[in-house]
């Protein structure tokens, strides 16, 4: 779950990480008071989840209330297109109005986890203010990575190693220590998958401040962060994915017309690969998950049918913890609620296969056992459909 900048900053504040003074504005009428409180000069920042906001004009400096109002009017309630929004633009529903600050230096700081060492990793670079990919390419040496053993937690020497990489004297060290400890604590306690402060700025008084903030919370940990679930903003292009996840399904929309429903992520990916390999285009990735529940099949069909481009459905189930009879039952129930107007090819094998086939027979459907044969049939069916239909 991605957080908006102001939501991330709200968490930073909770953890005593310095941030600029600022206010969230969701309508133009609130602007006046807020800009006055900041003394006229301010920064107007569009609150969207997509990256690349700065280059797309989503961050504006304003010297007067009039300028701020112009910027706000320009942004609020309109879609903002960045290189990450894939041509559609993301609606700006809120602005963050912040004080303008002068600083000595822009740094990059983040905490995320490293799959190889299976530890949190903190990264600091003296080259802040640009995308981390750019930093990584421009100057690999400029990024200092420090791994933290999860059993012993963050230690003084981890912070020291980061700070020493800046080549600065001791004067900023105390503020830096506090900053890093607080961000790390936030990262762990709030189950963040990533906290990125870019830029982290060094102020003239040798303290540090988070000028921008990106944060991703581990979806698997949301059960213990009800407060974050409440403030969740789902990106426009992920609406369906999030809805699906709430129902225990993994769904990713794609551009093709062959919908698929598979149990297991690996098999689902491999199924997409096979569809493509046979000259067709998958309409989605859809994993109905490990645990067995007929209801999931019903939900899955619902999601698939929301996509008007879908021409044929391919169901591929290899039962393990998922039982074939549960899948067949789910399918049966789904058909009792809605008729299926497009062709469907099914492959069903594994745990409780016999029971599953018996249920399908009852409603006049049959299923392949072998994947290769099933895909061959799928290809026939798809090729039999006239384009433009």
């Amino acid at each position: 779950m991605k957080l908006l900048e102001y939501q991330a900053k709200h968490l930073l504040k909770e953890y005593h990480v310095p941030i600029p003074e600022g206010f969230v504005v969701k309508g133009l009428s609130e602007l006046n008071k807020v800009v006055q409180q900041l003394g006229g000069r301010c920064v107007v920042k569009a609150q969207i989840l997509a990256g690349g906001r700065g280059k797309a004009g989503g961050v504006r400096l304003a010297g007067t209330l009039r300028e701020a109002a112009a910027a706000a009017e320009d942004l609020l309630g309109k879609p903002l297109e960045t290189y990450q929004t894939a041509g559609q633009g993301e609606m700006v529903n809120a602005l963050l109005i912040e004080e303008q600050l002068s600083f000595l230096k822009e740094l990059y700081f983040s905490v995320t986890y490293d799959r190889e060492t299976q530890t949190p990793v903190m990264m600091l670079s003296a080259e802040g203010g640009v995308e981390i990919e750019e930093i990584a390419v421009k100057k690999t040496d400029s990024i200092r990575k420090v791994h933290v053993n999860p059993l012993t937690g963050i230690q003084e020497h981890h912070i020291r190693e980061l700070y020493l990489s800046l080549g600065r004297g001791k004067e900023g060290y105390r503020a830096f220590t506090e900053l890093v400890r607080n961000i790390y604590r936030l990262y762990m306690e709030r189950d963040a998958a990533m906290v990125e402060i870019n830029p982290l700025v060094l102020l003239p008084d040798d303290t540090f401040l988070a000028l921008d903030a990106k944060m991703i919370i581990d979806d698997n940990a949301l059960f213990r962060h009800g407060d974050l679930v409440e403030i969740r903003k789902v990106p426009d292009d992920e609406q369906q994915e999030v809805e699906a996840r709430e129902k225990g399904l993994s769904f990713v929309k794609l551009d093709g017309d062959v919908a698929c429903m598979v149990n297991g992520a690996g098999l689902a990916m491999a199924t997409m690969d096979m569809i493509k390999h046979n000259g067709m285009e998958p309409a989605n990735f859809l994993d109905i998950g490990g645990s067995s529940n007929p209801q999931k099949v019903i939900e899955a069909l619902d999601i698939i049918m929301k996509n008007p481009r879908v021409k044929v459905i391919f169901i591929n189930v290899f039962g393990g913890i998922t039982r074939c009879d549960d899948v067949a039952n789910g399918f049966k129930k789904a058909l009792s609620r809605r008729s299926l107007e497009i062709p469907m090819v099914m492959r069903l094998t594994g745990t409780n296969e016999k029971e599953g086939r018996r249920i399908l027979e009852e409603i006049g459907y049959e299923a392949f056992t072998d994947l290769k044969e099933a895909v061959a049939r799928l290809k026939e069916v798809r090729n039999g459909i006239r384009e433009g239909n």
Partner: protein
Amino acid sequence: MAIFVNRETKVIVQGITGRDGSFHTGKMLEYGTKIVGGVTPFKGGLEVEGVPVFNTVAEAVSRTGADTSIIYIPPAFAAGSVIEAVEAGIKNIVCITEGIPVTDMMTVAHYVRSKGARLFGPNCPGIITPGETKIGIMPGHIFSRGPVGVISRSGTLTYEVVHNLSSAGLGQSTVIGIGGDPIIGTKFVDCLEAFKEDSETKAVVLIGEIGGSDEEMAADYIKKHFSKPVAVFIAGKTAPKGKRMGHAGAIIHAGKGTAESKVALFREAGAVVVDLPVDIAAAVKAFF
């Protein structure tokens, strides 16, 4: 010979009274697995499929002498269950649970290793030595005993490949589902090390997917230390970047962990990489 588990392995089921736990206890017993006990707090004294239920793992271990445990516990409590198992002296832990938070798993992975125990998973189908023991959720009938070791990050895709192998008359020594999460206990390289020492295993099938760098490390290990033939399939060639493909671990970040780069490294290491999972058997056949 096989690796990690065999017919002597004494298994307890954590979460034995749940829907999945009780169902698969039956299936495992049917397969011949030595399920000696189960654990569900506050349900000690009951029986599931004729197996005694205990309140704690410590009690189950002291009463049954179990050395291995399989976990069907909801994600919020699963990490704690692994720690409970290790504290009780369990040496091999198979964690089926999907959806455990990453912060929990980082701690657990380091802890398990520091105690000399072994964790399979989480978010994995388990481990099977065909004809001897099945500790997991895989459909037992598709497996057959033979010279092929199988390691996979996926569950159902493993079944697909094993089905393919068995249908072609290629049996398996041991099949391990290592799990689809970003943080897992036993990785490809750990399994390759064990298969290297196993005289029964003549060839290895490795089923990888996009995301992470475990495949890259495996390719490096094969290149440097592994001389048995290896056939590889990597799932997710058609997956878009930046999207999580079901498995929490299957996500391509900043061009890293793509199928292309993994395929290239395995080929460089001398492994045979196939385009489709249904082509695995043919590739392995060619080894013999």
